């Protein structure tokens, strides 16, 4: 395990996220083609590239501020459904962490942010969206599961969307025909969760 400095941590996370999305963009678009409009990979890549372009500036910020700023960049660059959702997640997490003067637990900040995402998307658990990864990930964080375990759980949660009937997003227009496909947003969420867990595991003290 290599302990890294704060700036290198933020920069490294950005780089890792950008990389995993770039490597999987075609696959994500492919999933979106089955039940949406086929652009989820492109949208996410555009967003992560925009964040990556500002990584030096972002790495200078505190973690809460960096999260909020990354969220805003995603909102202003991704567009579509994914932009406001991922954006809200990061903006709210950052704001919660900052607002509480460091008093708030990460798990609680994440919970409030996830609630904001659900409100933004008017979505509930089981609607076959990225929330179906966020909720279980949050549950693992609450019970202080190990990073490897969170990573596994995210993957499992994403694959569970395969059997769900979409109730939000474009896929909802397909009704029953949305069953039998993994949700692209859930998949990108699991990929990002996994890469973050792996990065932290490698570079951070336990």
């Amino acid at each position, binding site marked *: 395990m290599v302990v890294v400095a704060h700036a290198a941590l933020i920069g490294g996370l950005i780089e890792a996220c950008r990389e995993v999305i770039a490597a999987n963009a075609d696959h994500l678009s492919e999933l979106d083609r089955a*039940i949406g409009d086929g652009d989820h990979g492109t949208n996410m890549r555009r967003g992560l590239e925009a964040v990556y372009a500002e990584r030096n500036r972002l790495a200078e910020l505190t973690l809460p501020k960096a999260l909020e700023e990354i969220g805003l960049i995603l909102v202003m660059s991704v567009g579509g*459904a994914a*932009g406001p959702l991922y954006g809200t997640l990061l903006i709210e997490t950052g704001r919660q962490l900052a607002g509480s003067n460091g008093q708030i637990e990460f798990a609680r900040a994440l919970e409030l942010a996830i609630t904001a995402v659900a409100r933004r998307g008017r979505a509930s658990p089981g609607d076959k969206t990225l929330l179906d990864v966020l909720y279980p990930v949050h549950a693992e964080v609450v019970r202080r599961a190990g990073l490897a375990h969170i990573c596994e759980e995210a993957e499992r949660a994403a694959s569970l969307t395969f059997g769900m009937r979409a109730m939000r997003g474009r896929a909802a227009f397909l009704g029953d025909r949305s069953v039998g496909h993994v949700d692209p947003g859930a998949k990108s969420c699991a990929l990002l969760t996994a890469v973050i867990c792996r990065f932290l595991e490698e570079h951070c003290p336990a």
Partner: protein
Amino acid sequence: MKKFMNRAETLVAESLAGFVAAHEHMVIFGADRKFVRRRSLRPGKVALISGGGSGHEPMHVGFVGRGMLDAACTGHVFTSPTPDQIIAAIRETDGGEGCLLIVKNYDGDVMNFEMAAELAAAEHRIATVIVRDDVNPGGSKRSQGRRGVAGTLVVEKLLGAAAEAGWRLDELSALGEDLNGRIRTMGVSLSGVTVPDTERKTFALNEDEMEMGVGIHGEPGRARVKFAAADEIVETMLEAILSDLARDRGDKLLLFINGFGGTPVSELYLAYNSARARLQSLGVTVARSLVGTYVTSLDMAGLSITVARLEERELSLWDAPIDTPVLRWGG
């Protein structure tokens, strides 16, 4: 996929630049080319702003002009514009009477316009109309409901005329909400579309198949059925539309046949002929008509039928002068 383009990344920007140049006497780019707006804004009226992903051209930029929109924000292909674009449009067009955002009911559009409205709320009076004209896709109650499709043109035209006539923000907002109950659209597709970024068809159909109940993003529809004669297709669609549209005898109807991009106008007129005859046989009079390729899904072959139930007041708004790159009539 053969498209006239240079690079997928610059396609939307290049096309918009061409649009603005070709209609330079009517429209100009807003700051940083984030949106397109009327060349001369009229003070003292509510500003109407719409937008959405590109791939639906000539909507919405083609509707910017006197009697319709003040500004339109365009996103990437089939991807909502981002809040910064919408906020910039609000800043540049709000003359003090407030802004009405006209949004098609897609989660992405709704969320991005909503974030923009929240961020701009401190400095501007803003109201939002979410257009939901798609026939009920038969989903459960918890689904996100009707999409905003070709009927958006009708909503934007009527609200545009009303704004030009001096209606206040709350009045426009109420009319928009009211129209949602009286406009219904259904689409049929004969082919998937190729999203330029992905270079793959969104779905593939056999020579004897069509998708019924499609939206305008290349997504498959409610059901894949056998291709049929035009009269039969039109009858099925009108049945779905009329049974989903509260209706009084003696209503004045607007009939709008819209091409999705790859269908020749001659076929649209043939469908119009069929639909009009069918409506007549049901004792319904067509009071206003529109036929053309206005709300598209890239180069998709297919069309949608929109029926709007209009009262006298709305008929006058429809007839009111309009002067945009795409729709033009009246004095």
